[in-house]
C-alpha cells in the first residue's frame, strides 16, 4: 500500500533528516535546517485564504472589461440581481461615492501625474480586465452564472499599447492629462565630456518584456465584519502596509481594521499591492454585512495581477581602448500601464543606481520616463528595477568586449571594484560595504570549466556544427535590504524601511518571536527560530514565530526587496539581545551577584568563575511569578525592537551559463549553469539554496520563455499557461551553485539578503550565452524571450529576431563605436554563417 501523505509523517521525516545533517558546532546559524513550516504547507494542513469558510459567507465575482479603452455608457445589473442566489449586483457607479481611489505611495517627482484609480471603473475603462461590475451570491456558481446577465454598453476609445507612440504628439490619450506620467533624472559627473572624445562608445537598445508574476497560489480575499470592526484576510505579502492603506482608502478607522495574511503561496512582488479586489471586498462586506470571498482564476490573474518589467532601455557606454569604462548613460521608457499602483513609478528607480553594476567609472546619467498605456499596471516583480539594470549593463559589457575583441570576463575584471577597495562609494553615491568579485568569479570559472567550454565553442564554430555553443557571463550586484528610511524619504517614498520584532520567553521557557516580516514561502519561521535559538540559548524546537496578522504582529513593514533577513532578522536578533540583557539582570538578582559578573553561555547565566547558575527558562519562570524582582524591573521576560538599517546591502555573484543553440530550429538548451553567489553570512544554507534555484529559474523564464503579449487593440493574448509559458524543472538544467562569503559590515549578522539575487543575475547570463552562440552569424541581440522563432529569425537576418505585436523601435541599434569589429572572430569555415 502506498503511504498516506500525512503531516505528522512528513514532520517526522523532516526531523529524521535533520539528525543526518548534523550541525557544524552547536550553533543554529549556518545549519541546513529543513524548514519547520514545510510539513503543513506541502500537506495542505494549513490555512490558505481560499480555505477560509465563515458562517453566512457570500461569493464575489467580477465582470471585467473586454475592451482596452472605452467609455462606459450603461451598466444594467437588474437581470443578474433577479437570479437565484444573487444577493447583490453592483456597478462602479453604485460604489462611486465610497470606493475612493487605489493608492500610489511613491510619487517620484513633484510633477508626477497620479490619475484617479477607482477600484471599479465608473466612467471609463483603461485596460482589458478592469472590473466594471460584480455579483455577490450565495455560492460561486450562482455568482459566475449571474455575471453573464449583466449588460454593459461601451463606447470604444483608442487603445494605447506602444510606449514610443504613446509619447508622440497625436497619440490617443490614456488619461486627459496625457501619456507621460513623469520624467526622473539622476546624473553624476561630466557625462558629456566622458562621451565627447571616447575611443569606444557602445550603444544598445534592449526590450524588457512585460512579465506576469505567476505565484503558485492565486490571489484570494475574504472580508468580514461584526458591524463594528472589520477583518480582511488576503493572500498578500504586506498585511501591515495594506492595513494602513485600506484605512486611508476606505475610511474604515485603522483601529477597527485587522488584516491577516494566512499562509501565502508565493508572491514575487505581485502580492505587494493594494488591489481593487481587496478594497471592494471590504466595501461589499460593509454594505451587505456578511462575509465575502473572492478567489481569482488563473486567467483572471494573468489579466489583473500587476505585471512586471516592461521597459525600453537605451544604454550607452563610453570606454577607453583597453576596455575601462568612462561613463554609462541610460534612457528608459517604463510602461506604467493604465494607472499608478502602490509602487508602480518607483520600480524603475530601484534600478536607477544600479546600471553601473560592479564597475568603476567617472560619470553616470540616468533618465526614466514613465508612460501610460491601456494595459494592466506594472509594479514590483522579483528584483523590481534591478534585474532590468543588471540586464542592460551586463549585456552591454558583453557587447563592449565583443567590440574590443576581448574576453567578456576580462573586460569585467578591468572594470570592477577590487576587493581591497571596499568600502567603495560608487559613481551613483551608494557605498558598497563589502564584496569580493575576484573570488566569486574565479570560483565560478573553475566550476564551469570556462576554458574547456571556450575550446569546444571554437571547435563547433570551425566545424560549422548546426548545434552552436554560447557562453554567457553575468557578474552582478544589487542593492537590497530595503531600506534606510531616510533614503526612502529622499526618494519621495511614502513610508520608511524599518522592521519590527518582539520576543517573549513564556513562563515555561518556550519562546515566541513576533515578526513584522510577512513570509509567503521564504521560510522565516525556520530562519528566525535559528537566530533566536542561538541568541537565547534555547532549542530550535522551542521557538515559534508569529507573523502576518496585524492583531498579533502590530507593527511591521512586511516582505519584499530581499529585506526580511537584513532588516527583520536583525530586529529579531536585537530583540533577543534585549531579552537577554533583562534576563541577565534578573539572573544576577537571583544569584545574588552583580550583573557584570554574570556571563551567558549555552542558555545559562553563571556567576563568573563559579558553577552557580540559572537557566534562561528558570529566569523566565521567575520573571513570570514576579515574586522577587529587583526594583524597577517589570514582570515577564520580553522585549521588542524596531530596526532601521543604515545602508542597503549588496549581495553579488558571478553566474555563468552555457547554451546550445540548434541553428536549424532556433531551439535553445541550457547545457550548464554555474552560480557562485556572495550573500554574506548564511543563516540557513538550504533556504539560500532554494532561493537561488527559484530565482535562477525565474530569471531563465524571462530570458527564454515568458512574455505578456498584448495585441494592437490592447487584448492580452497570454491569458492561460498554454500561452504564457513558465518553465518547469523539465526545462531547466541542474544548477551548480556555490558561495563565497564576504560578510556585510552593515549589520551584526553579516547577512545581505538572497531573495532576488538569482532572478537578477540569471537573465543576462542566459541571453549573453544565446547571443554569444550566434556571434558568427552577425547576431548581436536576440529579443527576450529568446524564443526558437526569434532565434531562428535572428540567425537568418543577423538582427534581434524581433517580430510581432510589441515591436521595439527598430533602427536605433546603431553602434556608436568607431572601432566596431562587426562580423566574427571565428567565421572562417562556418557554413551558412552569412547574414
Amino acid at each position, binding site marked *: 500500500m502506498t503511504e498516506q501523505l500525512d503531516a505528522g509523517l512528513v514532520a517526522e521525516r523532516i526531523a529524521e533528516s535533520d539528525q543526518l545533517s548534523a550541525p557544524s558546532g552547536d550553533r543554529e546559524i549556518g545549519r541546513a535546517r529543513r524548514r519547520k513550516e514545510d510539513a503543513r504547507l506541502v500537506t495542505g494542513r494549513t490555512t490558505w485564504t481560499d480555505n477560509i469558510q465563515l458562517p453566512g459567507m457570500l461569493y464575489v465575482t467580477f465582470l471585467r472589461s473586454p475592451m482596452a479603452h472605452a467609455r462606459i455608457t450603461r451598466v444594467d445589473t437588474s437581470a443578474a440581481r433577479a437570479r437565484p442566489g444573487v444577493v447583490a449586483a453592483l456597478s462602479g457607479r453604485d460604489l462611486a461615492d465610497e470606493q475612493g481611489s487605489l493608492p500610489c505611495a511613491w510619487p517620484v517627482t513633484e510633477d508626477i501625474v497620479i490619475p484617479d484609480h477607482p477600484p471599479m471603473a465608473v466612467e471609463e475603462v483603461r485596460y482589458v480586465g478592469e472590473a466594471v461590475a460584480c455579483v455577490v451570491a450565495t455560492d460561486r456558481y450562482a455568482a459566475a452564472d449571474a455575471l453573464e446577465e449583466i449588460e454593459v454598453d461601451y463606447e470604444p476609445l483608442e487603445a494605447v499599447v506602444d510606449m514610443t507612440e504613446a509619447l508622440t504628439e497625436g497619440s490617443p490619450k490614456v488619461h486627459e492629462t496625457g501619456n507621460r506620467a513623469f520624467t526622473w533624472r539622476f546624473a553624476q559627473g561630466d557625462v558629456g565630456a566622458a562621451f565627447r572624445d571616447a575611443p569606444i562608445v557602445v550603444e544598445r537598445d534592449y526590450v524588457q518584456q512585460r512579465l506576469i508574476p505567476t505565484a503558485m497560489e492565486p490571489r484570494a480575499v475574504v472580508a468580514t465584519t461584526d458591524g463594528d470592526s472589520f477583518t480582511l484576510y488576503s493572500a498578500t505579502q504586506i498585511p501591515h502596509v495594506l492595513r494602513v492603506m485600506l484605512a486611508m482608502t476606505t475610511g474604515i478607522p485603522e483601529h477597527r481594521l485587522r488584516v491577516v495574511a494566512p499562509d501565502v503561496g508565493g508572491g514575487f512582488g505581485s502580492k505587494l499591492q493594494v488591489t481593487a479586489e481587496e478594497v471592494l471586498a471590504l466595501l461589499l462586506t460593509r454594505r451587505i454585512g456578511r462575509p465575502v470571498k473572492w478567489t481569482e482564476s488563473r486567467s483572471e490573474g494573468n489579466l489583473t495581477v500587476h505585471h512586471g518589467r516592461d521597459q525600453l532601455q537605451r544604454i550607452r557606454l563610453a570606454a577607453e581602448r583597453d576596455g575601462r569604462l568612462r561613463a554609462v548613460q541610460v534612457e528608459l521608457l517604463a510602461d506604467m500601464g493604465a494607472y499608478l499602483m502602490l509602487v508602480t513609478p518607483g520600480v524603475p528607480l530601484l534600478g536607477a543606481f544600479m546600471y553601473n553594476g560592479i564597475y568603476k567609472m567617472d560619470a553616470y546619467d540616468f533618465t526614466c520616463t514613465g508612460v501610460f498605456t491601456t494595459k494592466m499596471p506594472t509594479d514590483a516583480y522579483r528584483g523590481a528595477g534591478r534585474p532590468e539594470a543588471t540586464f542592460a549593463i551586463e549585456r552591454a559589457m558583453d557587447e563592449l568586449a565583443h567590440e574590443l575583441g576581448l574576453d567578456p570576463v576580462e573586460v569585467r575584471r578591468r572594470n570592477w571594484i577590487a576587493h581591497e577597495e571596499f568600502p567603495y562609494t560608487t559613481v551613483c553615491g551608494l557605498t558598497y560595504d563589502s564584496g569580493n568579485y575576484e573570488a566569486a568569479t574565479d570560483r565560478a570559472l573553475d566550476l564551469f570549466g570556462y576554458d574547456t567550454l571556450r575550446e569546444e565553442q571554437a571547435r563547433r564554430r570551425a566545424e560549422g556544427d548546426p548545434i552552436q555553443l554560447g557562453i554567457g557571463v553575468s557578474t552582478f550586484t544589487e542593492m537590497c535590504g530595503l531600506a534606510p528610511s531616510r533614503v526612502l524619504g529622499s526618494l519621495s517614498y511614502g513610508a520608511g524601511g524599518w522592521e519590527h520584532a518582539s520576543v517573549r520567553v513564556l513562563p515555561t521557557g518556550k519562546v515566541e518571536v513576533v515578526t513584522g516580516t510577512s513570509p509567503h514561502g521564504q521560510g522565516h519561521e525556520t530562519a528566525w527560530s535559528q537566530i533566536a535559538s542561538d541568541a537565547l540559548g534555547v532549542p530550535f524546537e522551542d521557538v515559534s514565530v508569529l507573523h502576518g496578522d496585524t492583531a498579533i504582529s502590530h507593527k511591521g513593514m512586511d516582505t519584499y526587496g530581499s529585506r526580511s533577513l537584513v532588516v527583520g532578522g536583525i530586529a529579531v536578533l536585537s530583540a533577543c539581545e534585549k531579552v537577554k540583557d533583562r534576563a541577565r539582570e534578573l539572573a544576577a538578582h537571583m544569584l545574588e551577584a552583580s550583573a557584570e559578573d554574570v556571563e551567558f553561555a549555552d542558555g545559562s547565566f553563571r556567576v563568573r568563575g563559579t558553577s552557580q547558575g540559572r537557566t534562561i527558562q528558570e529566569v523566565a519562570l521567575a520573571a513570570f511569578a514576579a515574586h522577587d524582582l529587583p526594583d524597577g524591573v517589570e514582570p515577564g521576560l520580553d522585549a521588542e525592537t524596531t530596526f532601521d538599517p543604515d545602508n542597503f546591502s549588496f549581495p553579488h555573484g558571478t553566474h555563468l551559463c552555457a547554451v546550445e543553440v540548434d541553428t536549424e*530550429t532556433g531551439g535553445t538548451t541550457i547545457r550548464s549553469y554555474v552560480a557562485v553567489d556572495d550573500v554574506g553570512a548564511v543563516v540557513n544554507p538550504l533556504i539560500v539554496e532554494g532561493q537561488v534555484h527559484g530565482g535562477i529559474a525565474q530569471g531563465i523564464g524571462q530570458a527564454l520563455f515568458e512574455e505578456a503579449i498584448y495585441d494592437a487593440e490592447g487584448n492580452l493574448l497570454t491569458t492561460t499557461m498554454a500561452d504564457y509559458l513558465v518553465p518547469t524543472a523539465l526545462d531547466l538544467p541542474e544548477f551548480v551553485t556555490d558561495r563565497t562569503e564576504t560578510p556585510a559590515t552593515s549589520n551584526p549578522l553579516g547577512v545581505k539578503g538572497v531573495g532576488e539575487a538569482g532572478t537578477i543575475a540569471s537573465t543576462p547570463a542566459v541571453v549573453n550565452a544565446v547571443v554569444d552562440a550566434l556571434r558568427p552569424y552577425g547576431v548581436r541581440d536576440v529579443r527576450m524571450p529568446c524564443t*526558437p522563432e526569434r532565434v531562428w529569425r535572428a540567425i537568418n537576418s543577423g538582427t534581434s529576431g524581433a517580430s510581432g505585436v510589441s515591436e521595439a523601435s527598430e533602427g536605433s541599434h546603431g553602434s556608436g563605436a568607431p572601432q566596431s569589429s562587426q562580423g566574427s572572430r571565428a567565421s572562417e569555415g562556418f557554413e551558412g554563417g552569412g547574414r
Partner: protein
Amino acid sequence: MIPAPFEYVRAGSLDEACRVLAEAEEAGEDVKVLAGGQSLLPLLRLRLAYLSALVDVGRLAELRGVEDRGDHVFVGALTTHDEVLRSEVVRELVPLLALATATVADPAVRHRGTFGGSLAHADPAGDLPAVALALDCVFVVRSDEGEREIPASDFFVDYLESALEPGEVLVGVRVPKLGPGWGFHYEKFHRTAQSWATVGVAAAVRLGEGVVEEARIALTNMGPTPVRARAVETALRGVPLGSSDGERLRQVCDLADEGASPPADLHGDPAYRRHLARVLTRRAVVTAGA
C-alpha cells in the same frame, strides 16, 4: 473558471450512452461525450463552450484496454495515455503510438486523458492524430444505429471537427502493425517540456540496405487537421539515409510542408512552421531509419 450549468449523465453501458445521445439529438440538445475531460472541461470552464449535457463514458470497461489482434492492435477509446504508455503490446507492436504518447502533456494529464478523447477532439496540435494518420488507423464507431468504421484519412475533417456524427461514440481504434523492417519516430518541437507541439512529425520508415523503401509521414499542427506529407513519402523512396548523402535527404524533406496550411500563433508564424516541418521531418526520418 466555473462552467455554465449542464446536465450530467453517467452511462452504465455503451448501449445506454448511445441511447442517451440519440435521445438528446432528437430533442435538439447540445450533448457531448465526456471521457478524460482534459480537453472538454477546460473549454467549458473558460466558457468557450456551452453544453446542455455531458454523457460520461468514463466507467465503461468495454471501451478500455489494448489488444493484439493479429495484423493490428486494437486500442479502446477510453484507454488513458498512461495505460497506452505502460502497454507492452503497444510498445512492441505499434511503437510509434508509444513514442508520441510519451510526449503528451504531463503525468497528471496522461493519467486522465484518453487515447480516444485525443482523437475525437481532433485538435491538430494534439500529438496522436498525426500518428493515426501516418499509420492509416481505422476508427470503430458506435451509435444507436449500429457500428461503422472510418479510415483515419476521413476522420479529421477540420479544426476540432471529426467525422463523428452527433450520437456516435468512438469505441476504439485499429492500429495496424506495419510488419518487419519498419522504424519509427515522433519528433516533437515545443517550447517547454509540457507544452503543445509547435510542429510535430510522426514518421515510419522501412529501409532496405540503407535505402528508404517506404515511408509514412504525418505532421502535427501544420493545418486545421493533421497533414499527411505525401510528397515526402513518395520522394523518399530510394533515398539513402547514410550521412554522406545528407544533401539529397535534405532536398527531399524540403517537400514536407507541401499541402500544409500552418497556423499563426504566439509560438510561430506559418513561414517558421514550414521551415520547422522540413527540418523535423528530416530528423524524424533519420531517427526512424536508424
